[in-house]
């Protein structure tokens, strides 16, 4: 049993990665203490927060709106540009493309994820040797595969049983649940894609398809995955918190860790946190896991610099905070001659993935092409109102905009580049801690893809779908898949963590999650993050059991 201020395993962060490590450690008989910067709020309150929002904040990407931040745990509010710029400091040619959304609440950003569970492919992990770009992972797909499977069974992932529709079709076990059906809009896309030789495949997703899983109900198609699943049919880490407590784990919300303390042999001795009264507390343990995703984890390491670690904890390689990656996103909004009717089922249910692979990757980036399946009625309703329509004309216009408009999204693989770097800003937050500052440039690799490959491809697709009018964004936006800031590698001189997500510099410090990913591919990052958390858990448990 963990006391308030000591445990075998001290975990900073209660998102998907932290909760995965917590449960693995508890199952192995270790005591666990979790420290969460933000509050612990029940689902029903967040659902009500969402429903009480003004219409303008319900749609249009304001996924943080039902999660108002505490002063001591700021995250990115997207209400206005000014508020969004308040915490995260951004610079560089594509600064706005790194305005990542994440939630500093118990349960973390999976509160408002889509539940998408793509795996990396074997090729995604060998970019350097196959295509001469980026980096190779320290291990291959077959090493990671068992951890992918465990992650899928831990979260409850549904997916197709037909190998032709699996991504990639290299699996040791079937998905725990069968696939969800496609809504009418996604079926239209699938048919149109097939005509130009592209395969739109059902998404592997952490969502219950027709049956219960881990005491969660089957999805009933509220189409509300952003910003919260009102019934918990989608896996989010908040659903795991009661299980962790039932197994004896201790979860301390409103505890902002601001320092990792090292001692002899550079072993981590403690972490220090502020409570909401700005009082500091010291927490000791045998092993420490920083699971605050790709921005807060490197920020904390840099904040923790000491005499032994003058560049920051775990940073003898100078790679902490570098190689910041995401999938660089290009959004297209189109009007179609015929109704598409997106919005039936979950907010995302299929993607074209084959465009992420190929020899072209020596020259330009692969891309995931996806039709968003979020209902368009909110966006359509706001647009129709702004036209000043009333009565039947208003109804008809809402219906037309809901049925006949659609968003197709292009998510490009970015390469790990040391110039894309998180540093500490001189600006301080409410607690007096340095805010994170990020320089971001998506790179020519991505820009060439947009020019030669991804946008030309989506134009053909839109034409096949009968688009009468399309707006293709010229600015990149963020996919919220934060990767790279604690990059993994076998060589301590150019990477932060070893293949078990253990810091090269500190034998009892683990940094699993998106930050450890060597490359990101074109798919969503969460499943890989949880798989790495599984791998790190095994190493951590073995290490503590060995004494």
């Amino acid at each position, binding site marked *: 049993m963990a006391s308030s201020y000591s445990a075998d395993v001290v975990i900073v962060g209660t998102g998907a990665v932290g909760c995965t490590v917590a449960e693995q450690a508890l199952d192995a008989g270790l005591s666990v203490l979790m420290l969460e910067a933000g*509050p612990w*709020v*029940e*689902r*029903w*309150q967040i*659902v*009500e*927060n969402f*429903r*009480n*929002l003004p219409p303008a904040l319900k749609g249009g990407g304001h996924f943080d*709106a*039902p*999660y*108002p*931040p*505490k002063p001591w745990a700021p995250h990115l509010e997207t209400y206005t540009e000014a508020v969004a710029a308040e915490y995260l400091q951004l610079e560089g040619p594509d600064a706005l493309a790194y305005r990542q959304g994440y939630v500093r609440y118990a349960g973390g950003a999976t509160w408002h994820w889509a539940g998408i569970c793509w795996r990396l492919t074997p090729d995604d992990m060998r970019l350097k040797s196959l295509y001469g770009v980026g980096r190779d992972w320290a291990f291959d797909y077959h090493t990671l595969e068992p951890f992918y499977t465990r992650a899928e069974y831990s979260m409850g992932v549904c997916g197709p049983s037909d190998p032709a529709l699996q991504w990639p079709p290299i699996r040791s076990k079937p998905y725990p649940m069968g696939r969800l059906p496609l809504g009418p809009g996604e079926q239209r896309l699938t048919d149109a894609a097939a005509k130009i030789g592209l395969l739109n495949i059902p998404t592997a997703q952490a969502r219950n398809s*027709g*049956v*219960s899983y*881990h*005491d*969660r*109900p*089957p999805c*009933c198609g*509220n189409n*509300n995955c952003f910003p919260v699943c*009102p*019934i*918990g049919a989608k896996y989010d880490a*908040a*659903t*795991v918190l*009661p*299980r962790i*407590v*039932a197994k004896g784990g201790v979860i301390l919300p409103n505890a902002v860790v601001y320092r990792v303390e090292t001692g002899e042999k550079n072993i981590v001795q403690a972490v220090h946190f502020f409570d909401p009264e700005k009082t500091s507390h010291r927490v000791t343990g045998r092993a420490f896991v920083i699971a605050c995703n790709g921005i807060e984890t490197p920020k904390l390491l840099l904040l923790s610099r000491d005499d032994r670690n003058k560049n920051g904890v775990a940073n003898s390689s100078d790679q902490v905070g570098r190689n910041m990656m995401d999938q660089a996103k290009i959004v297209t909004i189109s009007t179609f001659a015929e109704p598409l009717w997106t919005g039936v089922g979950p907010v995302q249910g299929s993607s074209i993935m084959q465009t992420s692979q190929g020899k072209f990757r020596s020259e330009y980036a692969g891309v995931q092409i996806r039709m968003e399946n979020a209902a368009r009625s909110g966006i359509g309703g706001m647009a129709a109102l702004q036209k000043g329509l009333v009565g039947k004309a208003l109804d008809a216009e809402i219906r037309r905009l809901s049925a006949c408009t659609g968003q197709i999204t292009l998510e490009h693989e970015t390469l790990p580049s040391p110039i894309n770097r998180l540093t500490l800003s001189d600006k301080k937050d409410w607690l007096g801690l340095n805010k994170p500052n990020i320089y971001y440039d998506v790179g020519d690799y991505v820009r060439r893809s947009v020019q030669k490959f991804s946008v030309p491809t989506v134009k053909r697709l839109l034409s096949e779908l009968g688009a009468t009018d399309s707006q293709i964004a010229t600015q990149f936006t963020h996919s919220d898949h934060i990767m790279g800031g604690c990059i993994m590698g076998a060589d301590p001189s150019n990477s932060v963590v070893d293949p078990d997500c253990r810091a090269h510099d500190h034998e009892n410090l683990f940094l699993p999650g998106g930050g450890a990913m060597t490359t990101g591919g074109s798919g969503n990052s969460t499943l890989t993050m949880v798989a790495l958390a599984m791998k790190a858990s095994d190493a951590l448990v073995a290490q503590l059991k060995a004494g």
Partner: protein
Amino acid sequence: MVPILHGLAAGVLFIASSAVCLADTTSHSDAASIQRGAYLAKAADCTACHTAPGGLPFAGGLPIKSPVGTIYSTNITPSLSAGIGGYSEAEFDRAIRQGIRRDGANLYPAMPYTSYQLLSDADVHDLYNYFHYGVAPVNVASHPTSLPFPMNIRMSMKVWNLLFFSGHRFTPDPHQSAEWNRGAYLVNGAAHCDTCHTPRGFLMQELSGQTMAGSQVGSWYAPNVTSDPVSGIGSWSQQDIAHYLKTGILLGNARAAGNMGEAVEHSFQYLTQADLEAIATYVHTIPAVHDPAATQSRFSYGAPSIELATLRGENPIRSFTGPSPTGAELFSANCASCHEAFGQGSKDGYYPSLFHNSVTAEANPSNLIATILFGVNRTTAAGQAYMPGFGGKATDPNQLDNHEIASLANYVFAQYGRAGIVVSEDDVVMVRQGGPSSPLVLLARIGMGVGAVVVILLILFFSFRPVRRSQA
């Protein structure tokens, strides 16, 4: 912890490892008899108590939550070392129909031998064949049960049996049809419906004149299923009854959850149409027991309604869980995403409407509270019917506290069901802990001091009332 139906068969059929080997395990077997026995075992729902969730069939080990401690169901596979492989047919018969195990000790009546006594010789023979030749032996002893004194005194059961155990076989009523008699045999024998549905008296005997009139069973309430059109199910046709037993659903009336959901899942859905119709024929004639306080059938209460207007614009966007939510707020956030904004359920009937629903109109609020706490998980040929629990288990993803559940239940009763039913936090506590509690162990020990044997009997039977909550 998974409590179960016949609170008690625990530790009951424990077999000594020195059991005599059967001379020949195959010569006695008869495929048709085994098959009939398998069917009867379904009808008797043996698996409900003797198979643990995720465990091997009939290997026991299901933890049973009782007010006097946790007891574990026994291994009734033909294992010689761990099960009932050493039982002769006569010994098996004595356990089933007289409640006496092989070593002569009495079973507690959580093992429903008071119902099984009606079984015919032929059916007991088939059951014996099934459990000896049709079930795979599992050589793992189920978890031993250790109950506190004086609950371990089985001799007292002999006195109770003298008072309340008739030892009668089923006698057909010559004035009724063969179908009716088949139904009566199943309902009162193998299916042991009365075990839950008939209220009990001072010594926990079933009350005559109150047969099937409704009774609390642990967290849940087994309602009146007599032919009274207001208090019972007299408004249902025989077809309705058979359909309900087969599927667990009678649209616009009732859904099976808790113990009844399990009875449908493990037992009734496997019965032949002829047997279901026979049961319906008999149940339709169970003498009406009318509750004088009842003025309206529990299937007819309520109407669609909504109180969203009281919510929107009233509450701020909070970074903490609201400390005192209204019932309307809790309903909107926890229930309406599936049961719909007006409580009308889904068009396909997967999600029930909350009006015209027996749960929201029963005078005893247990079933509504238990449904919110423990949810519904019933699998039939039509698939799984599932509702998550809201805190009945510590691992439930969403945890509502007693105050919140009382507020929510009061709102649902007032808004969609029988207005005037008031749920207190104490009611929620009672259902959460698995049913009414009593200081019986202490009373029994005091009772022993003054030689009050009657008190012990009361304790034993009250304690071992059939108690089963929904499976984990």
